[in-house]
């Protein structure tokens, strides 16, 4: 079959991208999703706090998804569920499979990749010990409890202070379990401050920073874990080890963009983000293939994921329009900046404003976010505190950025006294 725009992934990025392509004039949009319903991870995120940027309301995950799903239903966008992509190539031909159509051979004019991300597991962080039942990633636990209605344990230990882990700590308490504590190997929390407040502080769950699990014990089911304090090189400190009896271990140790399909194309990936390198319109290294959301870089707010999807959808609708493909402007991560998306900016773009999204490496107080074009400081904004879990962004007119070949984002300590 032939389509104009094919969107892979029906989570928040894919939903927004499909809608935006449709609104910007693409006639034949096909949205394919591996799961049995649209919304991606949102249906299992039953807590509130979604949509504060886009809708100015505190919605639950299912409500946020529903807003987009209802919009999709009003359009002529074709949706295929339980559809899995097997192959993809640089000519935008996609082979997919589902129980109703069997094998699908799809030729698209433009492609939008919105596959999201997945969780790091126990295996990826190499926790020694037994391999009993009772070890789950936070997202899997969330699905069991909130979608399948299955409770997982009575006494819980949580490894990692990522947002999903914090949210599940509260959820376990409310479902009647005991949460012994959250153990974080880093000296700073991994999740958003608001989740530390309303998930841990509200329920008096202890957070042990610079601590990790050094052993898991249990024959059939988890019987307990050994925890220990770590030094500045994240090595366990001798003599600090303590045994914590528990029946369940929840692992919340980060998310990885899911890019097997991007590698198959193949697209150029950024080793810092783990996602495709994109320009200011979310176009990847292959013309006509766009990417948006957590497949590009892991976000902390769904609102930002939707916004990226919107940009990608609009760009797919304007595919072929003039923008200079040669000599893009390079965007660099300077002092205390881990990465910046987009990684390149094309000159003469139809996007009048470019939003630079970035994360800092370290917590810093009384700092300034600065953007340099060439050597010139074109933007400066004071921040009281910057933290790695909280993504920052700056919007700048492309006319200002176009003057140079290199744009650099830096976060540096203020010399003057803080006001």
């Amino acid at each position, binding site marked *: 079959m032939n389509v104009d725009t094919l969107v892979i992934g029906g989570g928040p990025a894919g939903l927004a991208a499909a809608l935006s392509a449709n609104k910007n004039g693409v006639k034949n949009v096909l949205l394919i999703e591996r799961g049995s319903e649209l919304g991606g991870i949102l249906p299992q995120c039953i807590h509130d706090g979604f949509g504060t940027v886009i809708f100015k309301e505190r919605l*639950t995950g299912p*409500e946020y998804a529903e807003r987009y799903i209802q919009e999709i239903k009003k359009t002529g966008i074709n949706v295929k569920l339980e559809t899995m992509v097997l192959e993809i190539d640089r000519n935008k031909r996609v082979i997919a499979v589902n129980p109703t159509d069997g094998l699908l051979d799809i030729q698209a004019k433009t492609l939008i990749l919105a596959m999201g991300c997945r969780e790091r597991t126990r295996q990826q962080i190499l926790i020694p010990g037994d391999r009993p039942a009772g070890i789950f990633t936070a997202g899997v636990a969330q699905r069991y409890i909130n979608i399948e209605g299955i409770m997982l344990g009575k006494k819980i230990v949580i490894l990692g202070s990522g947002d999903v882990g914090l949210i599940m700590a509260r959820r376990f308490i409310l479902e009647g379990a005991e949460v012994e504590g959250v153990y974080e190997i880093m000296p700073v929390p991994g999740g958003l401050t608001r989740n530390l407040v309303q998930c841990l502080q509200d329920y008096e769950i202890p957070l042990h920073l610079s601590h990790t699990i050094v052993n898991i014990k249990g024959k059939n089911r988890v019987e307990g874990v050994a925890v220990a304090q770590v030094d500045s090189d994240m090595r366990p400190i001798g003599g600090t080890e303590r045994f914590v009896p528990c029946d369940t271990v929840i692992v919340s140790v980060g998310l990885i963009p899911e890019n097997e399909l991007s590698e198959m194309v193949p697209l150029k990936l950024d080793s810092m983000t783990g996602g495709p390198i994109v320009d200011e319109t979310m176009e990847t290294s292959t013309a006509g293939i766009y990417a948006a959301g957590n497949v590009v870089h892991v976000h902390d707010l769904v609102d930002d994921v939707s916004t990226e999807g919107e940009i990608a959808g609009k760009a797919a609708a304007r595919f072929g329009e003039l923008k200079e493909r040669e000599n893009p402007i390079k965007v660099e991560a300077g002092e205390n900046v881990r990465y910046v998306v987009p990684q390149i900016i094309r000159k003469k773009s139809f996007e009048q404003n470019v939003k630079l999204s970035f994360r800092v490496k370290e917590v810093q107080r009384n700092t300034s976010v600065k953007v340099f074009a060439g050597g010139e400081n074109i933007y400066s904004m004071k921040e009281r505190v910057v933290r790695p879990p909280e993504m920052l962004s700056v919007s700048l007119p492309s006319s200002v950025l176009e003057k140079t070949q290199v744009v650099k984002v830096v976060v540096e300590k203020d010399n003057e006294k803080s006001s």
Partner: protein
Amino acid sequence: MRKVHKFTCIGCPSSCEIKLFENDGQKIEVVGAGCKIGKEYAIKEFTAPERILTSTVRVENGVLPVLPVKSEKPIPKKLIRESVQALAKVKVRAPIKQGSIVYENMLNTGVNVIASRNLEARDLER
């Protein structure tokens, strides 16, 4: 007596660190809030902290066995646990429309608990 209370706003990701100065149980000043939401949040946390309640209830005949629900408005923080226990006894029958009332007037707060999503029935009703 003068006291300082520290709050971290949960209104948005800026997570403003707000100080509320109290004198003999009376609020005298709020500093550090980046916007109106933060100022109101700090005052609310000082006087009567509230949270939106979210949980799930059992579903009969649904495509899924549980339904996510939420309180229409924030309720007192101290009532959250008891509210979740009350919801544990609730069973609803699919199909369910998003926004429909699942539990009326939770613990006399005057706040209803509503369905967070649409949930279809597993099979057609006879």
